């Protein structure tokens, strides 16, 4: 569904990504993992057309995205939920969701999807008339995922949906991401929470300093020694679990 070939990109003259290759098959959940500042968000911005491509090519659903503008990429069915967790604080929850449906003209479908999102995230329904600026961090994350879904995308890119959220909320959001994928939406999830992401995804890519350092099936990555060392080994939880084992 999404094919990224030898992508070089960055900010102005500053090159961050140096030859990224990545592929997301239709209907799957794929994870892009890496520490802070390794270029994950830069890659998503490039895919979404917010940053220009210096080299390489991006193909989505049979279309070449290389020169396309952000709004055209959304129309093609590829939607990004950014890591900044930004809602429109001065709009109500429902207005936020309606902004997501801007590219669509099927009123009936929009109404149905609104109901569907309220089923995924019941808290949004109870707060539909409140200004989104008053929501908690977890609720905003649900709202921005819901807003992305309102565009009826073929594929959703989620940038660190677990960042800065309580573990219980993370669990709820991840189980909803799984449910969303079950409805046929292809998903690329970007995470620093490697353990959670690999539980969800089938296949993962590890990025470091703008290059893909490692890729493979989630099972293999979880047991890979270099992954354990860089991401999994250091956590207190992991250490205590290993001690008790």
């Amino acid at each position: 569904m999404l094919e990224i070939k030898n992508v070089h990109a960055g900010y102005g003259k500053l090159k961050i990504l140096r030859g990224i290759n990545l592929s997301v098959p239709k209907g799957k959940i794929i994870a892009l993992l890496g520490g802070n500042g390794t270029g994950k968000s830069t890659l998503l911005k490039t895919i979404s057309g917010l940053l220009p491509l210096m080299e390489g090519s991006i193909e989505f659903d049979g279309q070449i995205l290389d020169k396309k503008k952000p709004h055209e990429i959304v129309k093609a069915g590829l939607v990004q939920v950014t890591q900044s967790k930004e809602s429109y604080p001065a709009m109500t929850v429902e207005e936020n969701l309606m902004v997501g449906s801007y590219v669509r003209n099927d009123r009936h479908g929009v109404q149905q999807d609104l109901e569907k999102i309220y089923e995924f995230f019941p808290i949004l329904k109870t707060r539909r008339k409140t200004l989104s600026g008053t929501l908690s961090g977890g609720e905003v994350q649900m709202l921005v995922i819901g807003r992305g879904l309102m565009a009826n995308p073929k594929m959703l890119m989620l940038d660190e949906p677990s960042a800065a959220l309580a573990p219980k909320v993370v669990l709820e959001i991840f189980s909803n991401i799984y449910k969303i994928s079950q409805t046929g939406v292809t998903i690329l999830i970007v995470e620093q929470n490697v353990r959670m992401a690999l539980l969800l995804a089938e296949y993962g890519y590890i990025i470091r300093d703008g290059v893909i350092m490692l890729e493979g099936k989630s099972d293999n990555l979880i047991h890979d020694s270099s992954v354990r060392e860089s991401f999994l080994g250091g956590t207190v939880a992991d250490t205590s679990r290993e001690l008790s084992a």
Partner: protein
Amino acid sequence: MEFDFNSLFAFIIFGVTIGVVYGMVALGISLIYSGLDIVHFAHGEIYMFGAFFGLVLAKDMSIPYPAALIGAMILAGLMGMLIERVFYRRLTRSGGGYTVAGMGMIICGFGMSVALMNVAFLIWGADAEPFSIDLGMPLQIADIYIPQSYLLTAVVSFALMGLLHFFLKYTKIGLAVRAVAQNKDIAYLMGINVPVFISLIFGLACALAAAAGVLIGPMQSVQVEMGYLMLMKAFAAAVVGGFGSLPGALLGGILVGIFENLGAAYISPSHKDIYAFLLLILVLMIRPSGLFGIEAKVKA
């Protein structure tokens, strides 16, 4: 002087009337501020051009006044979109998105103001042109006579604002306008063609200024230098109401209008134009974010 409730009432009505016109220009300045992250210093000149467009359409071309009003709004709207596309876009774009505007934008706004004034001077000359339209006898309420032009101004202004409110609140395009005004990057990622909407916002703001010009025209006269004072008053209105807040702009305009009319009536008529700034200073001392100001990040 004996205190007379009738004349107090009249002063307030005149204040509200002129105030909604300030509010309309202030609303445009607020819209542009939300949409483009710039304070548009040439907005007074757009108002002046609007007044001249109305004058040309109504007097020289003998088009009925209501049609001249709409025509002037459309012309000024298109002119604004052209100015945004040709002159401002480069500047608003540089520095990462539309967010960092900086000093260049301020200088550009002032430059545009002077340039537009000179263009108007070349076309229409420096003389004040009367813009008389015959609206019939003044209306009498109790013992007060209100000229029809005031009534017309109040009605048209409130109607335009109501329309704008409806548009922003209840239509899909209006929702997208608000989305662009609040957060351009996210709006882009929701599939909204942001540059087109920036133009639309600018055009809308200029059309409102033109409406103000055509409405004020018959009360005063139309003149190349009329923009400066209006900019200052509208600016005061926008700040009093809370910069970037749309209802605030309208209410700020009305407050400025009432305040200066009462000041002129009861303190000293020769200092009419300073009362707006007196109010501005007062409000800033008590509530620096303006009466209806919300946090700087939350716009529109």
